[in-house]
């Protein structure tokens, strides 16, 4: 029997091929792929299409374009600021333009060299800077979560399930706000170990991205940074030091902090 292909399969297949399925769905999809000949054939065809499109010859930027743009911008700028009319200005502009295109080449070369040096420096720093050990451990927890079949120990979008789960395991458990309306869907929670202490990590999804929010004892200072390609953002309130880790851009993590802080209800009075 040929399993029927639904629109949803088609979307899943595309998202899987683009690496945009969350880990749980990706594993689920792989399992189906292994058992469904028709789906497998369609997937192979999709990959063949991708290869064909990606191997199309690409047009390189024409060599004079950058210079033409620069002169346009010069004209735009001088039009606003000074506005000399006439030929002599144009001649002057040509000279400037030539100088600029030279300096741009030099700039580009410097930028490449700079990037190479910076990346090797960053790698070294990452390896030897142990001061931010806490952040590194939190990121390690996030990475472990990504590698496991699911990034959480308790899967639930219901904060009334996640919160008691933490409470039964940890001396201090955070509020678990549901932020689905703000774009961050609660998917579950897990216990990470930082230093020698178990701590609560709440897991949210934002589109295909996972956000791990680890809650540490309050009053710690963890700097915002990038570790192993993940952005780290930390903030404090009276009860916890929060450390959010995700592959989302840092601006989105800032949004996350904002909605989490706003969505986190005031601590209950026991």
């Amino acid at each position, binding site marked *: 029997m*040929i399993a*029927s*292909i639904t*629109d949803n399969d*088609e*979307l899943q*297949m*595309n*998202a899987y091929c*683009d*690496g*945009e399925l969350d880990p749980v769905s990706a594993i689920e999809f792989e399992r189906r792929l292994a058992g469904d*000949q*028709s789906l*497998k*054939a*369609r997937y*192979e*065809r*999709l990959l*063949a*299409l*991708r290869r*064909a*499109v*990606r*191997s*199309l*010859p*690409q*047009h*390189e*930027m*024409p060599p004079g*374009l*950058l210079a*033409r*743009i620069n002169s*346009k*911008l010069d004209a*735009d*700028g001088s039009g*606003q*600021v000074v506005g000399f009319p006439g030929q002599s200005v144009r001649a002057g502009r040509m000279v400037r333009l030539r100088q600029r295109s030279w300096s*741009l080449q030099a*700039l580009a070369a410097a*930028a490449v060299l700079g990037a190479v040096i910076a990346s090797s420096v960053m790698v070294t720093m990452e390896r030897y800077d142990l001061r931010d050990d806490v952040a590194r451990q939190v990121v390690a927890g996030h990475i472990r979560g990504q590698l496991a079949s699911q990034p959480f120990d308790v899967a639930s979008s219901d904060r009334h399930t996640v919160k008691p789960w933490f409470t039964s395991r940890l001396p201090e458990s955070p509020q678990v706000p549901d932020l689905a309306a703000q774009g961050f869907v609660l998917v579950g929670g897990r216990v990470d170990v930082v230093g020698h202490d178990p701590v609560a990590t709440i897991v949210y999804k934002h*589109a*295909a*991205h996972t956000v791990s929010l680890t809650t540490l004892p309050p009053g710690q200072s963890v700097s915002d940074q990038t570790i192993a390609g993940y952005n780290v953002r930390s903030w404090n309130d009276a009860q916890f030091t929060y450390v959010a880790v995700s592959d989302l*851009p840092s*601006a989105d993590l800032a949004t996350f902090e904002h909605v989490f802080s706003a969505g986190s209800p005031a601590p209950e009075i026991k």
Partner: protein
Amino acid sequence: MQNKDERAVFDEVFLPHMAEAYRLAQWLTGNSYDAEDVVQDAALRAFRGIKSFGAVNARAWSLTIVRNTAYSWLMKNRPKAVVFTDDLSVAEQQELEHEGPQGTRIETPEEIALFKADAEEVQRALAQLPAHFREVIVLREINQLNYRDIAEITSVPIGTVMSRLSRGRQLLIALLGDRK
């Protein structure tokens, strides 16, 4: 002085993505002369609007300007060259979005042959796609952006990016299959 600062910001934000911008413009307009015009216009727009750059994602910001410039340029200079799905009748739109040339028939594994199309055929098929489908495929495969960035650049929700990609690829496969 103000002007000088803006120029520096522009150099930092827009210039690094120029090659990519050109490539995108090339695919959206379909030829290199138009692409050159579009990139020049886009650069000027980016320069004038550099204050609105929010220091979030320079690449997406730059490509958004290029994409929008490409469409307004095409509307002005070659209005018949681009088919937007919005231009089609509701019935045509439905057909395109949901059924397409192959209908809903389910193929058997034997029928799903790996197509062998040469570059020219692929290029032609891609150029034939309605603009909304072409742009997501180009942004995904050529510029290799993720869904999030594509959604930002084309200013549609991620769900729409997903369905357009999926539908666009099906259309491409159908177009390439028809050639045999």
